[in-house]
């Protein structure tokens, strides 16, 4: 069974149909790439999946359960984590607090617990260690460089042990060395069983990392296949370069 399934999802903004009867599935255990030219509706799809937007029509199923229309925090609880294209952080909190904010709480009694529990601290430090910014754990998040903020986003996304992680341009604004690390992390997590859906524009990265790749254009799914197949498909090139 597919981990995530979009079924004929449509989202309009005023006169513009940003996502137009879009359907695709993300199989468990894959790193699925989501590519397409500007304005194809990729980020809108992410916003629909994570609950920040509600689809006008269509269904979104996660692990067989309908999640469209649920508030974002419930969708996060079900096991979908996401990062943002432009890294967003709680800038006046420490890096550690940023990560721990993403730790799930259950019920009202949990709210009274200390903000940073010992086991959470250990887990968060381990995650920061994993992405390589543990030495900054007690700095205010706004002091991080842009690349470090990207890494922080990744660590935050991991805190709730999600089944599916949506990455919105993980390589955007990141230098090549950092990028290599991010790719390594994604691959490590993938081996440990996490599923990824990644929007990315650096094609070398997508082609090397993702399988399968979904191509969107005009809010619709244009093609889905292995990286090689996508590169060979004339329609994909047309979508990017325009019809000759």
């Amino acid at each position, binding site marked *: 069974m597919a981990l995530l399934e979009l079924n004929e999802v449509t989202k309009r903004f005023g006169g513009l149909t940003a996502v137009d009867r879009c359907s695709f599935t993300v199989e468990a255990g894959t790193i699925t790439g989501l590519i397409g030219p500007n304005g194809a509706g990729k980020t809108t799809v992410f916003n629909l999946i994570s609950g920040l937007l509600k689809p006008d029509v269509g269904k979104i199923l996660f692990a067989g359960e309908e999640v469209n229309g649920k508030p974002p925090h419930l969708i996060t609880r079900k096991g979908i984590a996401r990062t943002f294209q432009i890294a967003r952080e709680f800038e006046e909190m420490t890096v550690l607090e940023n990560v721990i904010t993403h730790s799930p709480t259950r019920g009202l009694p949990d709210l009274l617990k200390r903000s940073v529990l010992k086991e959470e601290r250990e887990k968060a430090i381990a995650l920061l260690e994993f992405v390589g910014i543990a030495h900054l754990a007690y700095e205010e998040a706004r002091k991080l460089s842009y690349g470090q903020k990207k890494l922080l986003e990744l660590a935050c996304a991991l805190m709730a042990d999600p089944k599916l992680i949506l990455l919105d341009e993980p390589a955007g604004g990141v230098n090549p060395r950092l990028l290599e690390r991010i790719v390594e992390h994604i691959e490590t997590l993938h081996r440990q069983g996490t599923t990824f859906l990644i929007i990315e524009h650096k094609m070398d990265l997508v082609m090397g990392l993702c399988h399968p790749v979904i191509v969107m254009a005009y809010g619709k799914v*244009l093609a889905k296949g292995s990286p090689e197949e996508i590169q060979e498909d004339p329609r994909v090139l047309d979508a990017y370069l325009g019809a000759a």
Partner: protein
Amino acid sequence: MLLEVENVTAGYGAGPNILDGVSLRIEQGKSYCIIGPNGAGKSTLLRTICGLLRPRSGRIIFKGEVLNNLRPDQILRKGICFVPQDRSLFPEMSVKENLLMAGYTLTNKQDLEQRIQTVFEIFPVLKERQSQLAQTLSGGEQQMLAMARALILKPDVIMLDEPSLGLAPLVAIQVFESIKKLKELGMTILLVEQNARKGLECADWGYVLDLGKNRFEGPAHSLLHDPQIEELYLGKRRGTRPQGKTRTLEQGVDGS
């Protein structure tokens, strides 16, 4: 040289450099197309030239004058018009009023009225719709209005940011036809386009950007067939290309 961009870096807020040392040389009366994958910094470049974003380093020189620290309205008065990606119309104003606003920097009313009539000749559809609110226009008409608005000032340079974005293919073709018309009128055009083939068709010279840097440049018609471009958009091919074999793809549900 009409407009020169020298080694400009720029970015948003405290963020990283989106432009990382970009240079352009724009000559009077020619048209240029800037292409490159998403995130190459094409839109940012135009926003920097027209003053919505301040360059962090480098120089922007227009008719021998450095523009780096001018406000958008000052740069506009120098003769550079910008048509942004989102068209930036005034949704609750009529077509006519949008054009009147376009001539905001002009003080002679009759002159402005005459210019509007000239623009109506280039875009007859706008004349028909002149009393309609801008928000009720179709996507293609909105794009034409945005271009018409820039033309009012008879600028030395007109900069268009992805004019075909969000338009259905047929409508996009109309928009490109209009751009060619502008070119025939002798305008200097700086076009940013995702639709590289169509964009280059409209241009004399092409610039290819990637990751905020100049990648390469050349006459537009030769870039059209450059294999490097394909690679830039779709990544390096792994292994050799299987000859003459078309693979079947798993189609999306709505795939054609």
